[in-house]
């Protein structure tokens, strides 16, 4: 700073900070008087004080100016929470919805699964985490649990950072973390092979542990003393696998021997060898050849399934067409369109079929008990009260879900609802996101490392799809009832909007297109809201 020409050895120039604090009356009397005294004799500092003071006025005027009118949605005062009866009704609907979900979907599945040999109590655990597919899931689960606990701990520490001075809080949080982290988890040894482009385990060779293979074509002629997990376009097993086979492939040919289970996700699967335990397949076509056999149960989700070989346990099939031509030692449960039982078939247990047409049972077929047939009606049972009661429960469950979302994450709810107003962009983005998430999940699944990530991604997508109706329902409600503020008003709009969506979705002709529109629309709104929040969270460099 340059001096104005007057010498002020006793009163040195003050800096901008001091000048501001002086103007804002934040200095003590002695310091203030010193500043005042200096400014009286120093033109430069006096000028600084003047412009700083003017700047304060300038800022104040700019902020207080612009009498922006209050938006229409804020004209009415926000109301208090909903009446207790509203909550009770909502919770009642929620409980009824949960019961419907359980009794109408989960329990029958578990019952059917139990009938064919899966006796674990939890369906998800049975499917993914208890060795039904692969015993190594236990180790992965331990790792996931560890990561989840570590993440939760970090979140807890973050949330409680204001209270860190409270030693008891720190002790409790760190103690709990330590307790969880001390829980031992083991690493799972396995051999990993990448084909270039194919991988072959020659005959006479043995892998002494689990074998993971990613290759264009996988051929196992030797022995695997553990599980075989293969991600390949083609998988052919001619050797001996002493554990389970888990295969993600376009085509599986199992000509060898498996001491454990076979779990396959493929376009086609031909089992021409012996499976000592269970066979589970999510396949386009399954062929249990004449030379093939299953020592336990067979569960398939398939377009076509042909059982030319024997199954010593139960058969449960969800398929378009099923052919049974050989022995089934246990019960048979089939749900599908076409069910044929050849004259060579011998079914030792109960046989249950549910479908739109009578099964074709050839003469000579041996059934231990008369077949139990349930003719499935092609359309919902509109004439029954039960149908409408279920629709009401589903609506209630969706409403409670929306209400919980609003109360737990109001920012997300309101942001997404707001984004749903951009109908076209929301639908477009929703479609892109849906395709991307499905594809991304698939890509994640075809690598060993990303399998858990892929499944989690799909589960998240499923939740997001269910949530989409909430945003669209709220949008519809707002269109019909207006944009009054307050939690009660939002819930009323949500209830009405969801009711309209569920009524439309119950009409057979428009059900599929309407549901697709709602899903893409709501999904897009959610993605746009998340994207907006992420954009806002991007900090400016300091």
């Amino acid at each position: 700073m340059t001096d104005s020409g007057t010498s002020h050895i006793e009163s040195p120039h003050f800096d901008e900070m001091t000048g501001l604090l002086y103007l804002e009356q934040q200095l003590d009397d002695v310091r203030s008087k010193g500043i005042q005294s200096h400014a009286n004799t120093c033109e430069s500092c006096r000028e600084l004080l003047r412009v700083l003071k003017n700047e304060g006025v300038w800022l104040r005027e700019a902020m207080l100016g612009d009498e922006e009118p209050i938006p229409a949605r804020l004209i009415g005062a926000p109301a208090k929470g909903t009446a207790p009866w509203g909550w009770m009704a909502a919770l009642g609907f929620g409980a009824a919805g949960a019961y419907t979900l359980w009794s109408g979907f989960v329990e029958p599945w578990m019952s059917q699964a139990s009938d064919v040999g899966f006796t674990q109590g939890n369906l998800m655990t049975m499917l993914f985490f208890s060795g039904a597919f692969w015993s190594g899931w236990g180790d992965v689960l331990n790792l996931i649990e560890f990561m989840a606990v570590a993440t939760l701990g970090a979140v807890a520490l973050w949330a409680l950072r204001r209270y860190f001075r409270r030693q008891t809080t720190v002790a409790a949080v760190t103690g709990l973390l330590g307790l969880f982290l001390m829980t031992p988890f083991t690493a799972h040894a396995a051999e990993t092979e990448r084909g270039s482009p194919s991988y072959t385990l020659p005959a006479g060779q043995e892998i002494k542990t689990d074998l993971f293979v990613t290759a264009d074509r996988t051929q196992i002629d030797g022995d695997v003393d553990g599980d075989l997990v293969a991600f390949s376009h083609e998988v052919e097993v001619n050797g001996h696998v002493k554990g389970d086979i888990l295969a993600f492939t376009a085509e599986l040919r199992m000509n060898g021997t498996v001491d454990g289970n076979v779990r396959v996700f493929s376009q086609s699967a031909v089992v021409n060898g012996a499976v000592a335990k269970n066979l589970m397949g999510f396949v386009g076509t399954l062929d249990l050849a004449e030379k093939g056999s299953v020592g336990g149960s067979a569960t398939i989700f398939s377009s076509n399934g042909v059982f030319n070989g024997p199954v010593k346990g139960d058969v449960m099939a969800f398929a378009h067409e099923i052919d049974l031509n050989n022995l089934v030692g246990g019960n048979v449960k089939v749900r599908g369109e076409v069910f044929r039982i050849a004259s060579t078939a011998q079914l030792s247990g109960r046989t249950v079929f549910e479908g739109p047409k009578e099964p074709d049972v050839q003469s000579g077929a041996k059934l231990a008990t008369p077949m139990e047939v349930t003719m499935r009606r092609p359309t919902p049972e509109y004439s029954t009260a039960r149908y409408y009661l279920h629709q009401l429960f589903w609506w209630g469950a969706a409403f409670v879900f929306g209400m919980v979302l609003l109360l737990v994450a109001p920012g997300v709810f309101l942001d997404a609802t707001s984004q749903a107003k951009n109908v076209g962009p929301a639908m477009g983005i929703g479609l892109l996101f849906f395709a991307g998430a499905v594809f991304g999940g698939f890509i994640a699944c075809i690598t060993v490392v990303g399998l858990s990530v892929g499944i989690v991604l799909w589960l998240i997508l499923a939740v997001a799809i269910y949530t989409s109706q909430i945003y669209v329902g709220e949008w519809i409600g707002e269109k019909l009832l207006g944009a009054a503020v307050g939690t009660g008003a939002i819930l009323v709009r949500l209830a009405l909007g969801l009711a309209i969506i569920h009524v439309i979705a119950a009409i057979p002709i428009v059900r599929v297109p309407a549901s697709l529109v709602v899903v893409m629309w709501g999904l897009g709104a959610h993605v746009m809201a998340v994207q907006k929040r992420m954009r806002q969270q991007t900090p400016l460099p300091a």
Partner: protein
Amino acid sequence: MNSTELSELLSRVRAGDMDAWGELYRTHAPAIFRFCRRALPAREDAEDATNEVFMKVRAKLGTYDSSRPFTAWLYKVASNHCWDMLRRRRIRQDLETGDLETLPLEHPDPDQLEKLQIEHTSKEVRNGLAKLPDRARMALVLRYFGDMSYDEIAETLGVRRAFVGVLLLRARHQLRAILQGGAESAHEATAGGRL
């Protein structure tokens, strides 16, 4: 509305009188909305915040100390809410200790500063304000819109009282830089100091 009328109105609101609540809302909502508009860059956020502030006001009205001005309490609730919203959303990069060291100690050029004040309209200032980092913007809004004391600003933003002046001056520097030449200049001003 004088203090007696306000006191009576608040008593009616506490007793559950919906008309009184509506009147209280209509009287104060526009100002709170403008406050939120200044504090939160996105209009939608300001609308949401206004709504949520009044929900909080209604829930917390029992804790209001009637010996203090009601408007000041209202702004306090609003400022806490807005800052909580921003804090939840943002990972702040600026550190208090670093800021003190980077502040310029020299006088700004008064002529240049005055020129800046003359050349830019209030609307441009408001636009510039929206581009400021959250804490800088909140500090200016609390001080020059909410007319809050340094103690209140320190409490709201969770900083030491001695740091409030630094925060305000730094915010001024950043705003000047934005008005002069965009956000990049603001960052330079934060680091090296200009004007």
